[in-house]
């Protein structure tokens, strides 16, 4: 079933994988998120010394939606800082796109007690629902942890729940996440 999810993921992002790897090189990813990822990568390469961004974002690491400490983003920014602009942008887009696959696997596991086909249906419906398809990396990263948080809460797994709460917090779209966490707590207690 995971193979089916990978296949669906490739089909969903067919433009990126098979037509034009720069198909997301427009709007917010280009005028904010990608330049931010470059400047953060440079800061990590400098060994986290000095101001992160003297050009645009004051107190860069304090702004949650720039996800300065979110591990996949940090790795992407660091590696991307060694690459040219084009390759670095492809890596940035790939990191965003990978989060949808990650979300679908979490959703599949969440719904798996209902049977394989139902879990597959749920995974595709939840991971690729309209609201999730956003050009903002902070939203993509954050909502990718929702199925894992729900999985942790419904299976009463403290490690997974804690990890999901922490990673969602680092991913940085708090207007969603700060409500998601209490809901998952209610699920934990009353599901």
């Amino acid at each position, binding site marked *: 079933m995971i193979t089916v999810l990978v296949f669906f993921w490739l089909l969903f992002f067919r433009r990126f994988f098979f037509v034009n790897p720069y*198909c997301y090189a427009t709007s917010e990813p280009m005028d904010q998120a990608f330049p931010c990822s470059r400047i953060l990568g440079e800061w990590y390469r400098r060994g986290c010394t000095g101001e992160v961004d003297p*050009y645009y974002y004051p107190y860069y690491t304090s702004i949650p939606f720039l996800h300065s400490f979110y591990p996949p983003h940090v790795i992407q920014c660091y590696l991307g800082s060694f690459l040219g602009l084009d390759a670095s942008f492809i890596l940035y887009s790939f990191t965003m796109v990978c989060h949808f696959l990650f979300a679908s696997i979490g959703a599949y596991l969440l719904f798996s007690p209902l049977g394989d086909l139902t879990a597959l249906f749920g995974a595709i419906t939840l991971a690729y629902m309209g609201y999730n398809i956003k050009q903002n990396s902070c939203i993509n990263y954050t909502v990718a942890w929702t199925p894992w948080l729900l999985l942790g809460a419904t299976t009463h797994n403290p*490690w997974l729940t804690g990890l999901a709460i922490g990673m969602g*917090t680092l991913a940085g779209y708090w207007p969603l996440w700060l409500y998601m966490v209490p809901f998952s707590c209610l699920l934990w207690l009353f599901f």
Partner: protein
Amino acid sequence: MALHGAILVLTLAILLGLLIGGIQILQTAFYYQKSIRSGKTYAQLTEIGKVSPLQFLRGLIRPLPIRMVDGLFSTEITASVGLTGLALAFLARDVRLCGALILFILLAQGGWLFRLTSKFQLRLPARWTYFSGLTLAVMATQGFSTLSLLSPITNLLLILQCLNILLIHPKLWPMKPFCQRIEKPSWAFREEAVAHLRGKPRVQGLPYPLTTGQIHHIKTLGYSGGSQLKAMAWLRGDTNPNGSGDHFGRNMAPDKLAWWLQQDSWQALEEAYGRQGSPAD
């Protein structure tokens, strides 16, 4: 007793989450008081981004990025789970989920319920659409599960759902026609495009996608969105409580601009704001 045990383990899980996310939480707590995000009133929170039931329904049935809804791109208010998913959601028999869906739709409207809870609201009412979508996705899966005994039908429904999502939802990103032309980054950010800006007091308002100055290390007036520094909004003369009121610093006195371009840290701006005098003082 069982509930006590559950609460204890849950508390440990939350503590683990706080430990992992703590570095961001601490830094943001420090920044929040400095930004225009803090202390917003109900009127400021609901200035844009209210989703009426009709608009919500449109976003469910036709989630295409073709219009603006109360100041937002229509993709920001879509709870679409596909038409097959929507039909199956009606088969869900969970009263709690139905109740939650109604609650989220009401909150997204930005009406009395949002006003009642406005002290706990971080952002626009429209953000609650995410939770409506999430609830609908769970309801659709429950509905699918209800039909799962009829195998031939469920296979067909699964294929329909996949096709529906594969054909419609990829169109939500990038947000046509509200975005700029797609360009290779090496072309869009080419040095020739910014050569004429160097050494001149051009600030925010650089041509897209050079808005931020980060790629070419050009100083700008800084971020002007909803979480911007109070100090920067003051320097720029931006009176819009949602930020983005004046990207270009049109209300900014020339001496302020010249002063800012000579500074090499955000702290200098903070100190000038603290004095509340002319930044050049």
